[in-house]
């Protein structure tokens, strides 16, 4: 079990990446995907988007439907089959799936085990790619919000993203960081948990929202749209004026509005 971002940084600075946009960004939050593309292209990285990509299989994996998850992981390996190009994912939880869980699921599959390991080794969560691979902290972004950062669980504890999102946020001109109480506590999303155990999930969400409101922030930022969808749904139900943004959306803005 590894708690670090998998894969050593490539020797040369990459010039191309493949984007695994994630099914939630694809279906619900396409602007987040374009923000990722925008930031990467500004940094001189060409972005490819393999067309066959669907869902990484995490929902099935987290529910213990391992056969379904395995089928989806094989598909993922087939779609992202260009052996030399880094894969970037704007999600800690999908990143954890590709980097840690998919290789474990396929470890006994002779046709896929090695390819899954290779894919994992060249896959990076978006902020880890910027900070650890490209060595960037300031992407020239400008903002105006009071931002509370919520470190999503799988990014924080699965991939060890303790530092990278904060490094990038700190370099955004014009924003104010609002410390969040209990920031590392789960928002209660947890995939199907939010439906199967809706009341428990909702009580976690209420506690998270109370912390957000106490922080004085007008915007909650995270690196996972799944948590943000959950938090936004709770904020909207409450009629709260607080908005949610994926970190890529903050980084994509270059002119103050």
């Amino acid at each position, binding site marked *: *079990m590894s708690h670090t971002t998998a894969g050593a940084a490539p020797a040369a600075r990459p010039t191309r990446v493949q984007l695994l946009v994630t099914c939630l960004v694809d279906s619900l939050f396409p602007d987040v995907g374009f923000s990722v593309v925008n930031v990467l292209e500004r940094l001189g990285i060409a972005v490819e988007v393999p*067309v066959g990509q669907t869902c990484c299989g995490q929902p099935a994996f987290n*529910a213990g439907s391992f056969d379904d998850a395995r089928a*989806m992981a094989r598909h993922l390996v087939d779609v992202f089959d260009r052996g030399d190009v880094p894969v970037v994912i704007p999600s800690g939880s999908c990143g954890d799936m590709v980097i840690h869980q998919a290789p474990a699921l396929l470890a006994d599959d002779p046709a896929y085990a090695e390819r899954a390991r290779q894919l994992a080794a060249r896959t990076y969560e978006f902020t880890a790619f910027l900070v650890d691979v490209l060595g960037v902290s300031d992407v020239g972004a400008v903002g105006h919000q009071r931002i509370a950062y919520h470190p999503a669980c799988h990014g924080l*504890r699965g991939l060890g993203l303790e530092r990278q999102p904060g490094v990038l946020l700190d370099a955004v001109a014009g924003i104010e960081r609002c410390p969040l109480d209990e920031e590392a*506590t789960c928002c209660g999303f947890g995939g199907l*948990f939010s439906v199967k155990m809706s009341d428990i999930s909702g*009580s976690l969400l209420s506690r998270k929202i109370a912390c957000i409101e106490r922080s004085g922030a007008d915007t909650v930022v995270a690196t996972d749209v799944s948590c943000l969808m959950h938090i936004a749904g709770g904020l909207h139900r409450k009629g709260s004026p607080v908005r949610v943004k994926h970190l890529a959306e903050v980084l994509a803005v270059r002119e103050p509005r």
Partner: protein
Amino acid sequence: MTSSPLNFYTRVDRALRDPALGAAMERATKKLVSGREAGMAAFPEADAVRDHARRIRAHTIGKLGHYLRQFETAVHARGGHVHWAETAEQAVAIVAEIASQHGVRTAVKSKSMVSEEIDLNAALARAGVDVLETDLGEFIVQVDKDHPSHIVAPIIHKNRHDIAKSFRGLGATDDDVIDVPQMTAFARRLLRAGFLKADMGISGGNFGVAETGSLCICTNEGNGRLTTTLPRVHVALMGIERLVPTLSDLDVMLQLLGRSATGQKLTVYTNIISGPRRGAQGATGATGATGAQGAQGAQGAQGAAESDGPEHLHIVLVDNGRSGLLGGELAEILYCIRCGACLNACPVYQQVGGHAYGSVYPGPVGAVLTPGLRGLAGWEELPQASSLCGACREICPVRIDIPRMLLSLRAESTRLRLTPAWATFGLWLLGRLAVRPRAFRGAQRLAARATRLLARDGWIRKLPGHLSAWTRQRDFPAFASETFMQRWERRGR
């Protein structure tokens, strides 16, 4: 092992609707977690010690049969007796038989989770033995006919007003319940009388040391020391997995146990007990030394008679399902040293408290251990009651990968058809679609259309069918009018 006839969802509902419980849980778990953080921050070698401790636990569980035999031999050599209980029924029968052999009428007990697991007090009551709980929290649980809701802090779910009320039922005056010190003094007077008349002391065992046959018992109130030294018979109950090979291995565990549980460098009373009273009538073995001298005592000479300690020491090693986990996917849960840190750190436990789990072992460790020991049927909700946030794995002193085992149990639930059919079907369907990109895109378009029909201003207030559970708690956003992939294609790539 269940402490409640209610079903899981009813227990959860009851907990979530109890603001006093919520306040007590938030206050107590925050205090425990911050205490642990401070304790670990002042312990720079923590990471290395945790790695070392994990290796010790893994090694011991891997060779458990060997160490159990070594432990038994060493206990015998020091004049103690070892009893093997395969089931809870056997365990309580063994203790009742020991009580009967020694003509025991009253017993005092220091904290033991295994005794809760096997429901010992009820069985001893049937055998005509009065048992007095002497851990303050467990005493209050006993007075209230309640159940512990935390493996280290049994009354974490109560506040001092609840306790004052319980004590008034025992005859406490206004002066006795003014504040915590007065209440503690009141309990102490009652308990002291119990200690002095008890024929038998019952304890748990935090660790058993295989090389010396020693028991290690950690408490913060001193009741463990009185329980194990004052009465003429001492019975210790331990799960078979509680062993460490050597005293130096014990040292590694003790560096972590107190720090992980409360932030203490060491629990206030850390007893190492090696055999019954030396030179006592009917006992042939070695020392009953305590505290810092215990380690030396355990290795020391057998000879001079001692003036205190029990005449008889009986150690009951309880299996009750544990050996069934050895070599399997859940074996790692046997590494647990029962510090309770995973409970304190778990956002779900913090919200619902221990009783919602319905088991003696609540929280993340219980969500694996309970179905592991008892089987999934009847406990199938526990592994689902987690967002898999990983806080338990992060805080565990021996780095037990609880989320991995929750996933194993979820997979087992799916195989046994203990998960809701709609969820299993939905994931199967997602799996079929996800490997067929064209079908996936079609399904996306359908879902987009459906959500946009249901939404007003981009948000859905009520989803249909099983998904309505989502909108019971929060709104759901409509799908985008165009997916990322559609827009990307238009961009002309």
